[in-house]
């Protein structure tokens, strides 16, 4: 399996798609932060409203409220938006689909299947390399969000518990990301078609939590005491708090991560084992 992993690392290093994905994510984060800065300058009257297409409405500003747009937000909220709000999961879903399904596109998987390795070890290598890549993407998104935020808002806004909260939040999110990327890797293995894989993954990222919430309401109406959203990965990612992460939150995240990692790994492995290449 070491040989297989070494080849995966080499492909990763040579993957232009990864760098494009990483750069796109970082650029998006920088652009969003810059738009906040621009809105703040417009609000404070330093720049004319409408500059670069950004219009700030001040009608809703209540008396006594700060006129600074940036005062109303903090870095952790933005980190939460990027990591837990579907931004990083979208990039991860797209790249992992390309990563896994790309093996089938031009038949490169034929160069490793039937070469003395068990199919289980081949799938495991792909699965774990997908997780590793998703963690790197997540970490890059966090670093870009925090550093750009600090550059835009200044370090004076960093509270004493900021790094502690940030580390705890990112730690839980990275753990959940393992299960999420595993699910996407399994979807890639099942579909083996780039359009279908990306389409299903985007649907999963964008709509599945709403669907889970809908099921919660349905169960509630039926007087069934079961919340799907408490166990579905994208809901848990979205609902992870940015402050006061306690043992209950961590315990629940660990349980959900283990559950979905095991399910996706098992399903993907069985499919890869039985399906023809």
């Amino acid at each position, binding site marked *: 399996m070491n040989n297989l992993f070494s080849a995966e690392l080499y492909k990763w290093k*040579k993957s232009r798609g990864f760098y494009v994905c990483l750069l796109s994510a970082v650029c998006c984060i920088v652009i969003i932060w810059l738009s906040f800065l621009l809105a703040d300058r417009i609000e404070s009257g330093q720049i004319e409203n409408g500059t670069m297409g950004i219009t700030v409405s001040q009608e809703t500003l209540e008396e006594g409220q700060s006129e600074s747009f940036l005062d109303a937000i903090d870095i952790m909220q933005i980190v939460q938006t990027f990591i837990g709000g579907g931004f990083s999961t979208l990039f991860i879903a797209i790249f992992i689909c390309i990563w896994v399904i790309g093996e089938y596109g*031009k038949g*490169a998987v034929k160069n490793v*299947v*039937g070469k*003395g390795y068990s199919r289980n070890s081949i799938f495991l290598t792909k699965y774990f390399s997908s997780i590793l890549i998703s963690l790197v993407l997540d970490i890059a998104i966090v670093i870009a969000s925090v550093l750009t935020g600090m550059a835009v808002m200044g370090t004076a806004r960093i509270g004493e518990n900021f790094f502690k909260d940030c580390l705890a939040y990112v730690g839980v999110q990275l753990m959940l990301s393992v299960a999420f990327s595993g699910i996407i890797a399994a979807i890639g293995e099942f579909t083996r078609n780039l359009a279908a894989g990306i389409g299903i993954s985007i649907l999963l990222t964008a709509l599945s939590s709403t669907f889970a919430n809908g099921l919660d309401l349905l169960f509630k109406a039926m007087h069934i005491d079961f919340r799907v959203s408490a166990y579905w990965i994208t809901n848990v990612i979205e609902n992870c708090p940015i402050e006061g992460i306690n043992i209950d939150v961590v315990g629940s995240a660990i349980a959900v991560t283990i559950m979905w990692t095991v399910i996706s790994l098992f399903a993907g492995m069985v499919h890869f084992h039985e399906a023809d290449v």
Partner: protein
Amino acid sequence: MSMEYVLRTHNLTKTFGKHKAVYNVSMNVRKGDIYGFIGKNGAGKTTFMKMVSGLANPTEGTIELFGEKSEQMYSKRKNIDLFGRSKVELQRKRIGCLIEEPGYYPGMTAAENMEVVRRNLGIAEKKVIPELLHFVGLTDTKRKKVKYFSMGMKQRLGIAIALMRNPDFLILDEPINGLDPSGIKEIRDLLIKLNRERQITILISSHILGELSKVAARYGIIRDGSLIEEFDAEELEDRCKRCQKVVVDDTAAAARILEEGLGIRNYDVPDRSVIRIFERLEEAADINKALITGGVALQESMLVGQDLEGYFMDLLGDGAIGTKR
């Protein structure tokens, strides 16, 4: 001395729903042979090759590779090692294959693609890459990405990848498909070189029967998923040999006339009433006359024989073997 086989399959079958893509195929590939695998599109050649190379699981039957036999039922196999590999899977390390089109990463160069395969296979020596690229004539591609390669270059890269672990057995599915005449010749020369210089056994399928007959030592004909016949190149040549075929009531008396009366020695008796004469074909009328004069009842006399392409077409299609011309 018993014959050494690289590949033997026993009643190998693959079904997709109700469709039997490959049915009860028992193939024998001898060590050192170039085995030509012939069949129409959809006859089951690729499916068979995929099963042998581990890309597809058989529905029934067994595969014997280098003497190691697979389990009967793949879904219930027990004879596996700690890593979940069967003995046949371990023997597959000795196989190189190029099935359908070569597997490659289009955004990488030939050397980078080879590097991925080198790492996958755990080959320590890096020099194997330039050596193989030189062997298949791709040394000059340098930084050119594979997506810009011609069809022939991609096929040669596929062969280089298949040769990466210095295989004892090479499985090539339509390796000359889509190539121009010079590309076909290049691949043909390469295969002969591999067989002669490296003693690699080759199983090759192709539609271009004339080309196949220039390299193959043994043939297998597959039709509608079933292997209908296996024969050697000499046998094929013999079957296609032009001869005078006579149907008589008494072959012993006819043979005596041929030998004693006409001095003909080059003939055979494949059937109780048939004699095939391979010499003096231009004197067919005289031979017929001699047989009749000698008291033999001559029921039929004809000149038969085909080129290889015609013979294969008869086998693959609905025609009978040894069609009259």
